[in-house]
């Protein structure tokens, strides 16, 4: 059974794809049936994934010898591409996590999306997404990965724009697609360079070649490749400066935000960098770039999150920030820490999104946390699971987030990038603060009389509970005392970082301080005067943060003025210059014709005159150009 699952791991992505096809072509008119099909296939996929993962994690052989099955996809002289599966501990972990979260989100959606006219379509998209995401995780080469990478992007586009009749959703979807497209341009270039330089895109072959890259190319080129490859993840994982689409992506239905824009798709970038660690590891500078980008993004997004008011936006910026953590970990060389955080983050962030969805569901999509309050009384399950998520993300032991975040801080510290470590630590404080600011504002304090919240139905709360459990205990597999994680998921050789008590304690302290500050400002201070006062006192800073550093505006300006402007200029050039030449020559031809026709006067003698003038001209020209006739003699007559 396990054996079967491992050797048929392609079933994992295929099953949801089948569900997609069935829903689109057969069951679309029957919503309940569609969701049943979707969930059934997802469950099958999850079981297969779990079995396969179990198989991998029980045989240490796979630590160094991934299970690879490939078939030829297409090829020609100079370019041969396979498709296949690449099953190693990392991908096993990912398929387990992705299929699990996807399954839970689908179950949750049966409640959340109830009655929506696009119910069936929604489930078909979710299935397609799951298929693509799982396919990407299992990819055995870069091109295949890129294909699925784009497909998850497509699903993201479709799902963000699910309420496409809303202009904001439409624009957000477009923005997401285009922003990631810009990034994918870099990724594509990187892939092309790899193909041309190494002649293959297969991970197993590249893994062998990368350490000896001097045989193929220069270190500079190698760095360039790594940087190009990294651009893709910058877009997909919402790293600065291409993070702008992710908060807007919250226009999609909340289950989508949970699944795609928190737990799975956005970590694809992290996964891609991790998967290609063999390339990045060869070039120090590229790795450093990853680290800096990650750390800065983490901090930067956290500062924005502090001032935001909409519940999903806060979560979105928090996601950006957490993704920054993961990148930082990769950058400092710790695949272990990065993927560990990826793992825990998936659970607690999905949990928080789903809980937020539950809140929105109850409040009829009123999103501003300042207009909520005291929800925990009416919505205990949602509230308490949210609190668990909050504890996890803030880094309070023994919740999952603590262990993974600690691992990252530790890795950063030990890599010697103290500044990055400092930035990460501050971020930890900010994270705790803004998260708990939100929790306190939304769930505690006074109830707002205009709200009539009610607890969500079981199909929504059950996934919450499951995720809450995972968020609580999911980190226990990687504690210093039970370093299971560290033994399985690593790059090169297992990390045996000595736990550093000071760092551990300081991170707890920072988290506690953040929560405490939030408590002081938003619970103790019933009127929130201090908070408002602070905002007023630091008005410019507050505005800057609240407006997300005006990056969106800059991009908009760039698109509107530079891109559209040059497009307009090109077009005008086209119709007036390029086409002008064409029309001009046509006009000249026609004009010549209509002018010359007037030589045809209709008078016989004009014609005769032209006739004999021509004879004269021809004679003269021929007599003067023909060499043999230069002697003026009458040859035949003499």
């Amino acid at each position, binding site marked *: 059974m396990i054996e079967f699952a491992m050797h048929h791991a392609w079933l994992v992505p295929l099953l949801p794809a089948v569900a997609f096809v069935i829903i689109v072509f057969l069951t679309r008119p029957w919503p309940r049936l569609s969701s049943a099909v979707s969930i059934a296939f997802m469950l099958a996929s999850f079981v297969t994934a779990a079995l396969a993962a179990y198989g991998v994690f029980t045989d240490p052989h796979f630590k160094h010898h991934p299970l690879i099955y490939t078939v030829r996809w297409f090829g020609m*002289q100079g370019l041969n591409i396979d498709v296949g599966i690449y099953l190693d501990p990392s991908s096993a972990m990912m398929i387990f996590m992705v299929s699990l979260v996807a399954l839970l989100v689908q179950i949750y959606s049966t409640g959340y999306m109830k009655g929506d006219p696009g119910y069936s379509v929604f489930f078909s998209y979710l299935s397609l997404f799951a298929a693509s995401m799982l396919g990407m995780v299992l990819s055995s080469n870069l091109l295949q990965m890129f294909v699925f990478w784009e497909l998850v992007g*497509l699903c993201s586009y479709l799902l963000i724009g699910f309420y496409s*009749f809303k202009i904001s959703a439409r624009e957000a*979807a477009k923005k997401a697609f285009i922003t990631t497209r810009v990034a994918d341009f870099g990724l594509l270039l990187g892939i092309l360079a790899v193909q041309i330089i190494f002649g293959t895109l297969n991970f197993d072959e590249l893994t062998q070649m990368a350490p000896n890259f001097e045989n193929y190319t220069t270190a500079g*080129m190698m760095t360039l490749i790594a940087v190009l490859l990294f651009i893709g993840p910058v877009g997909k994982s919402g790293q600065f400066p291409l993070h702008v689409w992710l908060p807007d992506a919250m226009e999609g239905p909340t289950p989508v935000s949970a699944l795609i824009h928190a737990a799975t798709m956005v970590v694809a970038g992290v996964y891609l960098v991790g998967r290609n660690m063999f390339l990045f590891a060869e070039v120090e500078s590229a790795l450093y770039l990853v680290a800096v980008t990650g750390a800065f993004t983490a901090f930067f997004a956290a500062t924005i999150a502090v001032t935001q008011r909409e519940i999903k936006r806060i979560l979105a910026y928090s996601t950006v920030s957490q993704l920054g953590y993961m990148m930082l970990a990769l950058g400092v060389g710790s695949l272990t820490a990065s993927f560990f955080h990826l793992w825990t983050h998936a659970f607690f962030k999905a949990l928080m999104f789903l809980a937020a969805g539950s809140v929105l569901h109850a409040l009829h999509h009123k999103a501003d946390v300042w207009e909520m309050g005291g929800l925990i009384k009416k919505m205990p399950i949602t509230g308490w699971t949210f609190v668990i998520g909050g504890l996890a993300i803030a880094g309070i032991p023994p919740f999952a987030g603590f262990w993974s975040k600690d691992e990252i801080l530790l890795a950063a510290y030990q890599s010697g990038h103290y500044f990055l470590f400092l930035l990460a630590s501050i971020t930890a404080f900010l994270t705790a603060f803004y998260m708990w600011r939100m929790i306190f504002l939304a769930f505690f304090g006074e109830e707002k009389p205009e709200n009539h919240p009610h607890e969500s139905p079981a199909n929504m709360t059950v996934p919450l509970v499951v995720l809450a459990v995972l968020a609580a205990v999911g980190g226990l597999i990687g504690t210093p005392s039970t370093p299971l994680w560290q033994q399985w998921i690593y790059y090169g050789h297992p990390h045996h970082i000595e736990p550093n008590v000071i760092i551990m304690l300081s991170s707890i302290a920072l988290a506690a301080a953040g929560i405490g500050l939030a408590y002081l400002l938003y619970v103790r201070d019933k009127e929130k005067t201090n908070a408002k006062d602070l905002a007023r006192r630091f008005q410019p800073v507050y505005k800057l943060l609240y407006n997300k550093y005006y990056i969106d505006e800059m991009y908009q300006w760039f698109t509107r003025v530079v891109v559209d402007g040059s*497009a307009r200029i090109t077009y005008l050039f086209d119709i007036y210059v390029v086409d002008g030449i*064409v029309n001009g020559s046509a006009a000249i031809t026609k004009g010549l014709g209509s002018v010359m026709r007037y030589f045809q006067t209709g008078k016989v003698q004009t014609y005769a005159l032209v006739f004999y003038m021509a004879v004269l001209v021809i004679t003269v020209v021929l007599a003067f150009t023909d060499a043999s006739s230069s002697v003026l003699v009458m040859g035949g007559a003499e």
Partner: protein
Amino acid sequence: MNFPVLTICLLAPLIAALILIFLPRDEERLHKAVAAAGTFTSLAISLYVYFSYNRELGGLQFVERIPWINDLGVSYFMGVDGLSLPMLLLTNLIGFSAVFASWNVKKRTKEFFVLLMVLVAGVMGTFIAQDLFIFLLFYEVVVIPIYIMVIVWGSSKRVTKEYAGMKLTIYLLIGSAFLLASVIATFVKSVQITGVPDMSFHGLGQVPFPEQFQIYMFLLMLIGFGSLLSMWPLHSWSPDGYAGAPTAVSMIHAGVLKKIGGYGLIRLAVYVMPAGAAYWAPFIAVLGIAGCAYAAMSALAQKDLKYLVGYSSVSHMGYVLLGVAALNSVGINGAVANMFAHGVMAALFFSMIGFIYEKTHTRWIPDLGGLARQVPRLAVGFMMAAMASLGLPGLISFIPEFTIFVGSFERFGLLAVVAIAGIIITALYVLRAGANTLFGPPRQEYDDLKDIKGPEMVPLVVLGAVLVVGGLLPSLLFDVINSGVEPIMAHIADYLPTAVQIGGGY
């Protein structure tokens, strides 16, 4: 002699046209049925040929050869190889779909379908003719039917249909004058050199033309085929022409007719004049790249859907040129595959735009919006075409583009990056168009639109299926193409600049 499969394939639409001529004027449904039957026959035959073609063997198959004009060394020489086969299939896919995309034509249907059948047969002929002269006979068969179809059934927007039709026709004809001149010169030169007239592509390919001669001739052929392929800056007929043309013509023109340019460039110019190709390749690459970027930028400024797709197709043809210019196996494979992919995609795009125009009477993007709610199936077709246009993996156009990028990146390095950047702009305009047409708040005036159904679904189903199947199983396409490209590459290998050592360029 074998059963003349290809001739029958070629004649089926012509026979349909002949039957149509003798049908009464007002039997509209019958006209459509006959046209559909004719194109379906061709489609079925070409599918049969495509899948029974022996890929391992490669080379010309289904050959028919009858001496035709002895003093010119012309023979009625039909056959398919890996290069013509996808194009043959493409022609018939689009021809068949075009009949159904024209299902709502009400005006003078008899003439319309007669001309359409001639059009399909003409295009098909160019792809299966293996003799240069016969190729030329078919090359311009289509020009006049197209003109008449544009002026009678076309639409006037930014430019009048009369202007569009005339521009399309005269532009392409003048381009072809250069081609004809070079063909005549090539023929005369080949007789001078070998003493035996032979107009088959293969025969001409064996003639050792002097290098200088090849260089001149290649330039002329490039002008000829380039204008048909809407190579920048010879592209300006294309957006206007497509905008003026009726749906079926836009489909066939953008879908396959244009591809004759790329096909001819490979089949004739590169194959017969390899030294010329090697000489001009960087120039072609620059034009191709300019075309990609320039047309993509122009497309971004468009508000009329047909203009948008018109410019977009110019941009995509830039990729084809780039692939050809790479002059390596990968690049040319990609170029041919991209022609196929773009053909399917453009035809689908134009047919969907045709339906939108038919139903809403506008193609002006700001006047549209929210159609996804009112006509969901139409929206699906539109989005599929749009996604294929921006090169979404999983649809047919990604792998060809990728292949072209590999081929050209290898040869031209940084230069190719500009073209690859075109994918961003493409995404921008395609998504904008999709978003502004299909999404957003539905408009009241379109509330009672009828979604496409019945025969109208055929283009979406046929072309959409090809989009997806070709995207998932690119080897279906590439194995065939490769079997045609390899011999060409082997043939011209001696003339090519020494291949860039892998990685050596950096």
